[in-house]
């Protein structure tokens, strides 16, 4: 009759790691390095609104494609005599702007969809996953090329396309986080207390997956920067006079044999920005989801 004595066993629920209080954890170097790079780029973009060493439209005909330092141009000038440092600074604006809009679109559409996918019945959840699978077959660049054909090549169509293409990765991340939260005891308690789906989503799910969403924002930001650089390199984002790092690469490649620095500067800028957001995202992930740290 031991069967009567043993209480009904439930499988041990993994402690939702998303709920760990970030403040109790030690500082992590990834977050520090990534955060510093990101802060640097944001600061550069902000400063460029008020001040650049030279106006970006100024063509210094006395210093065409000059080396760093010549004529007061700290990083030199490009083929048309435009100041490279000023272009890099204003290019940071373009990069950040495209990233903010694209990630904003992705988060605003993807987060609710992901929560929905995590809360509805398995069959519907499965259906939503199949939809995101198809959606994933349209990566940012491909989506942007379609948008450029239909709506014309512009920054607006580029960032909208990048944003829409980034939705499915949000859906997936948010869905898996939601499933973890939905298995927690307090959600069960809320249900017993008579709380309905939307209220649970707002009161319990959203606050607990906020960390995941922030991490995904940082990761998607890096993707958006890459896509924007590729598009402006292809001449499909802004006009030829809108400063952007991708455009600088394109213009620099034409004269690469004589002036390799013209591709190296914007190249370093793009690499640094992507590195920054990637490290920042990794650092945040370590913070919010310690199970994955060191991976």
């Amino acid at each position, binding site marked *: 009759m031991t069967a009567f004595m043993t209480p009904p066993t439930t499988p041990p629920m993994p402690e939702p790691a998303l709920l760990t209080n970030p403040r109790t954890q030690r500082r992590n170097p990834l977050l520090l390095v990534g955060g510093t790079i990101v802060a640097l780029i944001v600061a550069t973009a902000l400063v460029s609104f008020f001040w650049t060493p030279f106006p970006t439209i100024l063509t210094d005909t006395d210093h065409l494609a000059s080396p760093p330092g010549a004529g007061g141009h700290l990083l030199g000038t490009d083929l048309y005599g435009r100041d490279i440092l000023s272009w890099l600074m204003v290019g940071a604006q373009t990069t950040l702007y495209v990233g903010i809009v694209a990630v904003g679109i992705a988060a605003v559409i993807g987060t609710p969809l992901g929560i929905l996918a995590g809360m509805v019945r398995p069959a519907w959840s499965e259906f939503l996953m199949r939809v995101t699978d198809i959606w994933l*077959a349209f990566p940012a660049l491909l989506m942007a090329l*379609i948008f450029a054909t239909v709506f014309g090549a512009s920054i607006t169509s580029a960032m909208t396309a990048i944003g829409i293409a980034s939705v499915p990765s949000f859906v997936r991340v948010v869905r898996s986080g939601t499933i973890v939260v939905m298995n927690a005891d307090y959600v069960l308690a809320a249900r017993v207390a008579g709380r309905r789906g939307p209220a649970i989503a707002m009161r319990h799910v959203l606050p607990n997956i906020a960390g995941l969403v922030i991490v995904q924002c940082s990761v998607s930001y890096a993707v958006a920067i890459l896509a924007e650089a590729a598009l402006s390199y292809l001449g499909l984002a802004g006009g030829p006079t809108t400063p952007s790092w991708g455009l600088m*690469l394109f213009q620099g490649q034409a004269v690469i044999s004589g002036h390799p620095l013209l591709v190296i500067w914007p190249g370093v800028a793009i690499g640094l920005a992507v590195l920054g957001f990637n490290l920042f995202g990794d650092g945040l992930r370590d913070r919010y989801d310690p199970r994955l740290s060191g991976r």
Partner: protein
Amino acid sequence: MWWQIVRRLLIFLISALVASIVVFVLLTLVGDPARTILGTEATPQGIAEMRHQMGLDRPVITQYLSWANGMLHGDFGTSFVTQLPIGPQIGERLLVTLWLVAGGMVVALVVALPLGTLAALWHRRVAGWILSGLSQLGIAVPAFLAGILLIAAFAVELGWLPSGGYVVPAADPIGFLKHMMLPWASLGLVQGAVLARYVRSAVLDEMEQDYLRTARAKGMTVWRAVIRHGMRNASIPVLTVLGVQMITVLVGAVVVEQVFVIPGIGSFLVDSVARQDRLAVQGIVVTIVVISLAVSFLVDTAYALIDPRLRRR
């Protein structure tokens, strides 16, 4: 097992159908393709004529079905901008792109497998940190940027390899290899860096498993145990990523082809976008998307074949 494969095949077919409808709706129904070709100064009469010529005055369903049916028979239609049939161009250029992607994937694997495994085996040592740092740097460099930098170094400074262009492999195998070396490297090094992280984390996962401890208890060295037993298990998560990676490489090739002036499907796509050639863009995008979906299907199936535990699910 067979039911699993059939189920996945069905999902693939339905996904391809849905994707083609999405592409069709975006590129044929949004805006006015006839006006795109004729420009803003076209008369209403001219536009109506053009719409009729392009078949846009037919019911939407008929338009889609005739386009989709044509594609199934390899007929992607004739461009209204260049007046050339689209299908043969896609076929010809797809072959070039597949060479590019295949080589890039090989380079990626050659880079990632040793790099990732070593980073895992040495994960508590400085060498492991350095390897991880290297792959982190690689991830930050987009393939087309790597391409430009490689051109600067190996084509311009050292003059070892051509800076761009394409040679048909059958005509001149050596020239083909020379021309593909830098494009392969630029796609492969970057993807290799991304892949290396997955390899590292997969191998690390396996190193914590009981069976590996058993193998070590029986006297195997860590290295031997990881290579003999760990690799096969670690290959499962890596294989899944590999499928996604191939899709990334395929799309990354679009820009890399532009950097190296390679006449692949990507440069065809970019040229068609610049020409506002909607029908061509439609055909190329569907081709790329269906290939991506097919790769996912094959990877999923291979996944089940490699891992017997998944067969019964």
